[in-house]
């Protein structure tokens, strides 16, 4: 069964390009050129994923995310030409699964869609996963052990917590605020410095070169993303 993707985009050329892309990768698609149209189709059509442009002529894409998240968990990938990091972080914190900044390539788009689907199905699985592996890095939740090239490595409790969070959300962008809330708890505020230091320490343990990471990538101004296989 092919998944159906709703493409919400007001620019005709981009819409064409995205649709062509989807067609090539055997996805079905429905298009909407404005917010109202999109909301209507979300209600009446059977949709598996939404590609959403934030700058729509009639409403802000962020509002669509907010309204959609009140009743549905379907994956949303934001496609935006906005430069401001805050917009991206806002969209992610409201419940978008991922974002793509224009201009983006077809391969990037398809990769992100795949990640979103994979994550969505994994998230909805009944059985609890206790072992994750990305490239040469793996984590065993039962043994509370992290392995690099099958060799156990030592990480601090905070680093372990951070890794678990990333493994569970592999491929997804996590905003700094989301991570801080998860690791340090609510009410810790917006002190990114401790997180950056924690991340730097972790990278020195798992990456060959912390400046060219292979596992956890930095999304400047937004947050971090762990690569997905």
């Amino acid at each position, binding site marked *: 069964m092919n998944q159906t993707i709703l493409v919400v985009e007001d620019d005709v050329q981009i819409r064409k390009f995205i649709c062509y*892309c989807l067609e090539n990768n055997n996805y079905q698609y429905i298009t909407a050129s404005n917010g109202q149209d999109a909301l209507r189709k979300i209600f009446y059509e059977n949709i598996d994923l939404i590609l959403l442009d934030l700058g729509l002529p009639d409403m802000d894409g962020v509002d669509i995310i907010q309204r959609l998240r009140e009743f549905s968990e379907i994956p949303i990938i934001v496609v935006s030409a*906005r430069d401001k990091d805050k917009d991206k972080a806002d969209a992610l914190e409201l419940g978008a699964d991922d974002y793509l900044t224009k201009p983006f390539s077809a391969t990037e788009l398809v990769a992100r869609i795949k990640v979103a689907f994979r994550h969505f199905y994994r998230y909805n699985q009944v059985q609890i996963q206790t072992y994750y592996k990305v490239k040469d890095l793996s984590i065993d939740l039962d043994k509370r052990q992290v392995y690099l090239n099958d060799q156990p490595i030592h990480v601090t409790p905070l680093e372990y917590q951070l890794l678990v969070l990333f493994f569970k959300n592999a491929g997804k962008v996590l905003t700094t605020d989301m991570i801080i809330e998860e690791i340090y708890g609510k009410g810790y505020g917006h002190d990114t410095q401790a997180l950056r*230091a924690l991340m730097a320490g972790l990278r020195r343990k798992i990456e060959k070169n912390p400046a060219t990471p292979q596992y956890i990538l930095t999304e400047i101004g937004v947050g971090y993303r762990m690569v997905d296989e």
Partner: protein
Amino acid sequence: MKMKFKSYIHSLLITVILLVIASCVGLFFQYLDWSEITIVLIYIISILIISLLTKGYIYGIISSIIATFLFNYFFTAPYYTLLFYDSRYFITFISMTLTSIIVSTLTSRIQLSQNQAYKNAQNMKMLYELTNHLSKITDKQRLYDEVYHILNQYFHYPIDFIFLDYHNEHKHQDIIDCFRNENQKYIIKDMYIFFPLYGVSRLLGILFFKDDNFQHMDETQKHIFYLMIDNISLALDRIYSIEEQLKLNEASIKEHYRSNLLRSISHDLRTPLSGIMGTSEMIMGINQPTSSSYHLAQDIYQEADWLYLMVQNILSLTKVQEGKLVIHKEYEAIEEVIGSAISHVQKNMSERQIEVHVPDEVMMVAMDAQLIQQVIINLLDNAFKHTSNNEKIVINAYKQDHQCYLVVEDYGDGFLGEDPQKLFGMFYTQHQSYSDSFKGVGLGLTICKAIIEAHQGTIEAKECLNHQGAQFIITLPMEDEYESNNISC
């Protein structure tokens, strides 16, 4: 002086007339053969009236004594002399004098406190009016006029003052400096006395008039005057803060328009670019890499990609060149910014080898990460364009003398004897050798310089020391208290 003299004469006349009247009435009573006590009472009544009609204690006391003598002269035997036969009269005289003095002082005191109360009420009314007036004023010129009017009306001599703002700071500079440095109540200089008008946070103005005028003020007037100064300062402070509020509002509206403009520019340019790049990529995907269609599409893609970089650069430039705008700095790990920049450029140039060296100790630097990332992207892009594919590029980051050093080196030809510093001039490119085959990079480097300078850092270009190639050295200030070892996990 004249006024005072007049009031002396006036009081004296009243005293004399009343005493004469009392004596006449007394003589009349004597003629009727009434008791001497009645005559004493008549005198006391006259003294009471004198005290009421004159100012101060002195007339009452003097007339008390005179009245006693008059009584003695006219009404005690032997008449018309100051002698008396009956020694009991002595008691009468003393008690009469004492009674009159007490009556006159009591009356005078009542009068004085009445006067005082009236004066106080006047002062209160004046202060109230001043506060009331000042609280309604919202601009400086009207405040000036109003204060000038009220002060001169109340004190009857010319009082002048200046409010400090950018135009008149140089006037009375020495006095202003004096007030700024130490919180003095007033300064006397060149026959003038100067009073400061302090606001909550700073000196707002000064007020001055002739020194001898101040010396003539009585204590109450001085007190009132200080209260007035406080009132004026308060009003001035309020006006200044209103002005500042207005300025801030204006700035935030401007900022709002500017960011809206930037947002729409970036949106309007990026969306079509995205279409061009995406479509050309698709064309590349459906053609063999050897076919001419593939190469044409690749050219389109690369041109569009370059345009995209320029859009990013121009956006960064508008951000930095907005002069007054303070860039939003946060503490970032430098390795993350480098890593992110590399992954950006490697999207399209994955075949290029980039070597990165960062220290084991994490370096946290205050910066706008997006702008610094743009700088690194520009430098890498520049290096790619001036070297061939098999030459590697090296990025070094290290800390030295409280500075974060960021060095980007390539293994190309270097600057070929050109002055490297010229590269940072507006839109400078090395015309001779590259203009045909490569896009100008002058804009990119100019923007790098603008961004780095906005971070209070430096950027310079040099020939590499150990090998042939160009070297770009960036320094960014690092603060001591945020040294990475303090925040290690």
